[in-house]
C-alpha cells in the first residue's frame, strides 16, 4: 500500500514543482513580455491577425469580449457540425463510417466546443479519422484556449487592467502555450508507444485460435492524446479513453498525462499571483485547493485499495477493486487519475468511474459540484476568485465594513454577479434536468440498480454542466433525450458563467482603487483563506448534499449492509 501512496505523492510534487515556472511563463505571454518564441511567433501571429481581420491593439470591454467569445464559438460549432455530417464523403475515413445521427452530432459538437468532451459514442465506431483530428482535435485547442483567454481577461479585470482582446488571447494561448507543449508531448508519447498513423485497423488471427481474428483499432492518437490532457478536454480517441492501451500504454505515459492535465489550472493560480503582485495570496489559495484535492485523493484511493467487501468474501482475502481498471495502473494510479480528471474538468479516464467504490463516486461528483478544486481550464481559476469575492462580502458583513478585494470595493453588482454565477447556474443546470429525467418514463437509461442508478443520472448532468465530460459510462446515453437535455446543461454551464465572469471583471476594472488602511481586511492571510474554504463548503457543497446522500452515501451503506 505504501508504494501506491509514494507514487501519488511524487506525482503531486512534480505538479507543484512545475507551477511557478509554468505560471510565470503564462504571465509573461499575457503581459506581452518577451518569450523565447518571439522571433518565430511574432511574424506568424501578425499574419494570423491580418488574415482574420483582428486589430491586435484593440482593447475590448467585458461585453465586447463576451460577444467575441460567443461569435467565435458559434462559428466553430457550425463548422465542426458540418464536418461530422459530411464525414462519409470526406477523406481519412479508412473504416468507411457514415454520418452520425443529427442529435448525436449536435451533442458532440456542443460538447467539444464547450471544452467538455462528453461522449455519447465510441470513437472508433462513430467518427472518422478526419472528424477526430480535424474537428474534435481542433476544438481541443480552441475550447481550451477560450477558457484560458477568459481566465486571463478575468484576472486582468480583477487587478484593474483593461481586459485585453479576445482574439489575441485566444491565438496566443494556442501558439505560445498549447501548441508548443503539444508538439513536444506528442513526440514523447509516440516514443513511449502511442500510435500516430493514418492506416486503418490491423486485423490479425489470434494466437490461441487462428480461426478467430482480432481487430486492432489505431489512428492518429498521440497528437490528439496530449492536447486532450493539456487542454483538459478529455474526449478519448477510442471509446474507452485513457484506459485504452494505445492512449495510455504504461506508467510513464500515465504520469505524463496526469501532469499535463493538472498543469494549466494549477499554474494559472500562480499566474494570478504575478498579475496581482501578491504571490502570497496565490500560494494561500493554492494550498487551500491542494488540501481539498489531497483529501479527495485519499478518500478515493482508500476505497479502491480496500476493494469490494462482497467480492473479497468470495476471494477469501482483501484485494483492490479492479473492476474497470487496468493492471498497469492498479488502485493508486486509477484513483489519482479519477480525482485529477474530475477536479480539473478534464474528463479523460484511465479507469471506469461507474465501477468505483462509493468513495470514488462521492469524490468525483463533489469535484464537479464544487468546480474549484483546480477547476476547468481557465474557468476554474476564475470561479475560485468569484468565491473569494463572496468570502470578502461575507466577512465584510460580519465586521460591518464595505468589503474590498485587491484594493477595489465589492458592491452590489459584483455580489449579484458572483452569487448568480455560483449559487444559481450550476444547480439549475444539474438538478432540474435530473429531476425531469427521473420523472419522465422511459428516458433515464439507468443500467445499475438502486442508489447507484440515481448517481448515474446526476453524474451525467453534473459532468455536462461542469464541462467535465467523464461519465458513469454504463448509462445508456446515446438517445435523443440525453443528447438534447445534456446539450442544455453543456451550454448553460459554459456560456452563462463566462458572460457573468467577464461582466464582473469589467466592473472591477473600472473601479477606483482605494488605498489600504489599518482597517482594510487583508485577504492574503491564513484566517481569510480558512473563511473562504468555509464559504466554498457551505455555498458550493451544501446545495448538492441531498443528492450525494441519496447517491453514493446511500450506496456505501448498502454495500456495508450486504448486497442482495
Amino acid at each position: 500500500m505504501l508504494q501506491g501512496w509514494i507514487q501519488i505523492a511524487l506525482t503531486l510534487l512534480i505538479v507543484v514543482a512545475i507551477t511557478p515556472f509554468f505560471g510565470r511563463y503564462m504571465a509573461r505571454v499575457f503581459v506581452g513580455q518577451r518569450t523565447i518564441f518571439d522571433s518565430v511567433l511574432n511574424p506568424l501571429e501578425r499574419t494570423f491577425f491580418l488574415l482574420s481581420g483582428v486589430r491586435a491593439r484593440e482593447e475590448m470591454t467585458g461585453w465586447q469580449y463576451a460577444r467575441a467569445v460567443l461569435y467565435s464559438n458559434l462559428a466553430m460549432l457550425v463548422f465542426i457540425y458540418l464536418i461530422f455530417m459530411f464525414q462519409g464523403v470526406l477523406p481519412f475515413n479508412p473504416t468507411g463510417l457514415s454520418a452520425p445521427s443529427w442529435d448525436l452530432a449536435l451533442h458532440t459538437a456542443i460538447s467539444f466546443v464547450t471544452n467538455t468532451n462528453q461522449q455519447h459514442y465510441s470513437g472508433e465506431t462513430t467518427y472518422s479519422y478526419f472528424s477526430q483530428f480535424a474537428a474534435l482535435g481542433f476544438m481541443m485547442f480552441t475550447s481550451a484556449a477560450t477558457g484560458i483567454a477568459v481566465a486571463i481577461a478575468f484576472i486582468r479585470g480583477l487587478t484593474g487592467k483593461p481586459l485585453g482582446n479576445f482574439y489575441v488571447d485566444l491565438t496566443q494561448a494556442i501558439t505560445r502555450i498549447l501548441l508548443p507543449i503539444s508538439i513536444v508531448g506528442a513526440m514523447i508519447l509516440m516514443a513511449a508507444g502511442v500510435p500516430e498513423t493514418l492506416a486503418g485497423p490491423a486485423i490479425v488471427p489470434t494466437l490461441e485460435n487462428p480461426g478467430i481474428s482480432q481487430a486492432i483499432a489505431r489512428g492518429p492518437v498521440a497528437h490528439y492524446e496530449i492536447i486532450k490532457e493539456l487542454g483538459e478536454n478529455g474526449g478519448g480517441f477510442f471509446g474507452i479513453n485513457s484506459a485504452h492501451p494505445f492512449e495510455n500504454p504504461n506508467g510513464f505515459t500515465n504520469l505524463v498525462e496526469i501532469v499535463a492535465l493538472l498543469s494549466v489550472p494549477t499554474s494559472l493560480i500562480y499566474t494570478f499571483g504575478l498579475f496581482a503582485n501578491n504571490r502570497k495570496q496565490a500560494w494561500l489559495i493554492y494550498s487551500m485547493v491542494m488540501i481539498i484535492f489531497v483529501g479527495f485523493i485519499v478518500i478515493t484511493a482508500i476505497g479502491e485499495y480496500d476493494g469490494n467487501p462482497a467480492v473479497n468474501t468470495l476471494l477469501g482475502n482483501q484485494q483492490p477493486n479492479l473492476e474497470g481498471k487496468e493492471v498497469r495502473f492498479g488502485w493508486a494510479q486509477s484513483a489519482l487519475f479519477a480525482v485529477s480528471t474530475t477536479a480539473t474538468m478534464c474528463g479523460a479516464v484511465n479507469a471506469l468511474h461507474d465501477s468505483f467504490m462509493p468513495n470514488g463516486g462521492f469524490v468525483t461528483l463533489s469535484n464537479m459540484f464544487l468546480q474549484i478544486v483546480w477547476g476547468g481550464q481557465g474557468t476554474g481559476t476564475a470561479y475560485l476568485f468569484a468565491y473569494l469575492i463572496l468570502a470578502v462580502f461575507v466577512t465584510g458583513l460580519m465586521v460591518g465594513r464595505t468589503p474590498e478585494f485587491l484594493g477595489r470595493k465589492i458592491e452590489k453588482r459584483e455580489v449579484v454577479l458572483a452569487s448568480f454565477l455560483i449559487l444559481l447556474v450550476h444547480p439549475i443546470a444539474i438538478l432540474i434536468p435530473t429531476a425531469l429525467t427521473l420523472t419522465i418514463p422511459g428516458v433515464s437509461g439507468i443500467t445499475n440498480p438502486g442508489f447507484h442508478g440515481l448517481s448515474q443520472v446526476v453524474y451525467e448532468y453534473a459532468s455536462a454542466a461542469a464541462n467535465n465530460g467523464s461519465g458513469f459510462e454504463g448509462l445508456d446515453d446515446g438517445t435523443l433525450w440525453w443528447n438534447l437535455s445534456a446539450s442544455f446543461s453543456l451550454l448553460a454551464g459554459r456560456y452563462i458563467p463566462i458572460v457573468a465572469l467577464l461582466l464582473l471583471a469589467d466592473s472591477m476594472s473600472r473601479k477606483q482603487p482605494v488605498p489600504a488602511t489599518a482597517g482594510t481586511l487583508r485577504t492574503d492571510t491564513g484566517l481569510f483563506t480558512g473563511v473562504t474554504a468555509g464559504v466554498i463548503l457551505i455555498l458550493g457543497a451544501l446545495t448538492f448534499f441531498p443528492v450525494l446522500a441519496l447517491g453514493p452515501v446511500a450506496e456505501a451503506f448498502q454495500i456495508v449492509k450486504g448486497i442482495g
Partner: protein
Amino acid sequence: MSFAREAGRAIRSTLVLWVITALVYPLVMVAFGQIAFPFQANGSILTNTQGQAVGSALIGQPFTSDRYFNSRPSTTSYSTADPQNDPDTILQTGVSGASNLAPSNPDLLQRVQETTTQLQQAGIQPTADLVYTSGSSLDPHITPEAARAQITRVATARGLPPNQLEDLISQNTDGRFLGIFGEPGVNVLRLNLALDALGS
C-alpha cells in the same frame, strides 16, 4: 461593431486556427511518427518468423485454454470475432469497452462468483485481476501473482519444468516506470508467444 464585421472576424479566425491546429499539426505529427518511431506509430505490431502480424505488444488477446497463460476476463473478448460471422462489424473498426457494473450491482457479484468457481476448479488461486474485467477490455497484462498461480497448470499441459516458466514470466514482465510509477504487469501475449517458441 457591426454584426457583419463581428461574424466575419469570428469565421476568419476559425479558419485560420483550423489550418494550423487541425491540419498542419496532426499531419506533421503523423509524418514525424512514421519516420522517427515507425514501430510504435503503427501500433507496436508483433510479427512471427514468417513476417506475419500476430498481434500488438500493447493489446491483449483472449487465452482460455490450459496450454496458455490465461488473460483477464474481457467484455469484448479483446475486440475479436469470427471473420465468417461478424454481425456487429467488430472486425471493421475494432472495439473497446467495459462492464460499467457498479460495486453494488448484484450482476457483478454473480459474475465474480462464476469466474471464481471456474478458476478454483482449474486449480488457480483467484486474484483480483483474474475475476474483475479490465477498463479497456484489451488489458495486455495480468499481475505477476496471477501468472505464477497458473504455472502448475501450464507446466502440466505442456510437460515443461515449472522453473522454466518462472523465468519466462519474469522476462515478460513490464515493470513500473523508474521502479515507481504504475504497477508491474506480465504481458500475456508476449509470454504465450515465448511459450510457443520453446517448441514442445
